[in-house]
């Protein structure tokens, strides 16, 4: 979530608008894979590329994202001292579970399968952990009202989809929005000089038989504050 949300925010942060009646919105059930890619050419002539994928599952009240590890991913390294008091506060590989509570407020939890723990931060800690608290951003990956401020492109798009663009003096953002899914299929951003490029591609997948947040029996609750030394 940290990387993912900060990418989304970096794209839309320039003109964040109040979320569209976020409490009332009930997104449809959907399961997808998100692919994040970036490419940049440095002034020392080095081209750097990155790529990673995350699973995205949502229903009307929950959004679950988790990193997908390609075959051959080296085992992840626990920091020295993990087994003493220096607790692991690296949540990159934990599932991020954002759920609406009874007050229609989005609550963030990290779920660690390997230790069967659910880590709950306080609301004030959300932003520091990469979640801005917006259900709209979590469930739709962007602020849908921001699309209204963008230019509609005549670029060919799949049925039910539409390309939008916003461009400044140096940077551009393009979104391929799927009206039925209520989710982007593609978000592209980059510099107009072509030196840097980022893309998030979203492909639909079948729904899992059981929603992942319904498989947490026996998990232990841990307060995020208790992980701080």
């Amino acid at each position, binding site marked *: 979530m*940290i990387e993912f949300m*900060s990418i989304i*925010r*970096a794209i839309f*942060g*320039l003109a*964040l608008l109040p979320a569209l009646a976020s409490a009332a919105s009930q997104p449809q059930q959907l399961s997808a894979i998100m692919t994040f890619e*970036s490419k*940049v050419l*440095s*002034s*020392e002539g080095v081209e*750097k590329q*990155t790529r990673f994928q995350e699973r995205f599952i949502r229903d009307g009240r929950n959004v679950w994202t988790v990193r997908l590890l390609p075959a051959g991913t080296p085992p992840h390294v626990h*920091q020295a001292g993990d*087994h*003493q*008091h*220096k*607790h*692991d*506060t*690296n*949540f*990159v590989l934990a599932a991020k579970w954002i759920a609406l509570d009874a007050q229609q407020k989005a609550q963030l939890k990290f779920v660690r399968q390997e230790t069967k723990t659910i880590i709950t931060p*306080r609301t*004030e800690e959300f*932003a*520091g952990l*990469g979640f*801005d608290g917006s259900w709209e951003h979590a469930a739709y990956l962007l602020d849908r009202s921001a699309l209204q401020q963008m230019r509609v492109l005549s670029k060919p798009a799949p049925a039910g989809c539409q390309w939008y663009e916003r461009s400044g003096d140096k940077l551009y953002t393009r979104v391929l929005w799927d009206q039925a899914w209520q989710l982007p299929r593609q978000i592209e951003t980059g510099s107009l000089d072509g030196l*840097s490029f980022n893309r998030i591609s979203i492909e639909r997948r079948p729904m899992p038989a059981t929603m992942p947040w319904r498989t947490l029996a026996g998990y232990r609750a841990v*307060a995020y*504050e*208790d992980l*701080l*030394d």
Partner: protein
Amino acid sequence: MKKTLLAALFVSAFAQPSLAAGEAKNVIFFLGDGMGPATVTAARIYKYKEEGELNMEKLDGKTRTARVKTFSNDAQTTDSAPSMSAYMTGVKMNNEVISMSPDTKPTKPNGKDSACAANNGKPVDTILELAKAKGKAVGAVTTTTVTHATPAATYAHICHRDAENAIAAQAAVGGLGYNSKLGDGLDVLMGGGWQFFRPTGASGVRTDGRDLIAELQAKGYTYAASGSQLAAVDGKNTSKLLGLFNKSHLSYELDRVKGKLDEPSLKDMTLKAIEVLAKKPEGFFLMVEGGRIDHALHGTNAKKVLDDTIAFDDAIKAALDEMQKRDPGLKNTLIVVTADHDHTMTINGYGKRGSNILGTVKDYKTGAESKDVNGNNYTTLVFGNGPNRKPVRSNLLEGDADKSQVLHDDYQQETGVRLGSETHGGGDVMLFATGAGVASKTFKGTIDNTKVFSLLKSAYGF
């Protein structure tokens, strides 16, 4: 026998002309958790500009500043348990250990319950316990849980800092697991962490079913659970005060103020503690910790670091002013301000004087953005390690519209090595002291952290 003692006294007095001889009736020990020299400098620039001074730096005309070596018994870079314990007991112990002998091995607890074996090391006396034994009033206040390593090192003894249920029990007067060296108990204990005082059935995490808050109230403690409840406590007519203002740690100062949370500031707690403790004719010992400076540093969030450091510095100012009223010239009051260890935050060059310490580096000649070899700007404050190391660096925006912009409340400074949580640093820390005549002048030069204990002890004349 008498003759030998006198001779020994004379010789040692002669050899060390500035040896303190018990001028201090009261000691207030301020501990900024993780507040290394770069944090002090950055906080100074943040609030008072380059040419200004923090309140802690004004102590005794800046002449009583020492450097403290912080290594622990087993580690080049310490954690807060043995470093605070060294200040409080004069003994160097292993990382994770709280005020125990050097042979004590840390044993990871079961949840929050102690798993320390009975023969695993021995408790060593703390300066707070010694002060209590001399009839002084004693207390500890913090912005973390009151059972966290730093406050725990003043009043508890345990083989592992994470056993916070057992640490809480050591403060519960007369109950199972009580630290009898505390006599009739701590006179003041304030901070966060009520979960360690309540049973699991009452939203706490105690597995023994005890409600330590009720137990302490039965022993005559006044209990405050919020900032407004604390404000309503009449310190002049209170001799035992327990304040637990959050289930876990108190909020960061930035969040407390912005969210108008009903938690006391460190200054509020410090002043109330003095009001309660200073009534005792024999004097008092008070420990005040700015505990979340360390947490913000671990998250490489410099803005919260600096706001919590300023809140800590404001508590020092309030205590100085209050004690000047009660003890003009601080003749009998020693005030010490230090940190338990450093962090890996550092200050990049070559910024223009007057530029925002939280911002990007502006060339001191041209005022233009300084750039890295790839043409991207960078912030003045960065960390040796921590969570924010991007696969590819990019240009930074000096705004606060969202978390990716460097002036945002939740911006995380960039780091050299990527770790989930930033580590402590192994560098020396600063110590400032004032008051109690010659006593504060004994803190000078580069000293070991264990030496601080013996200087406190001789300041009291113990």
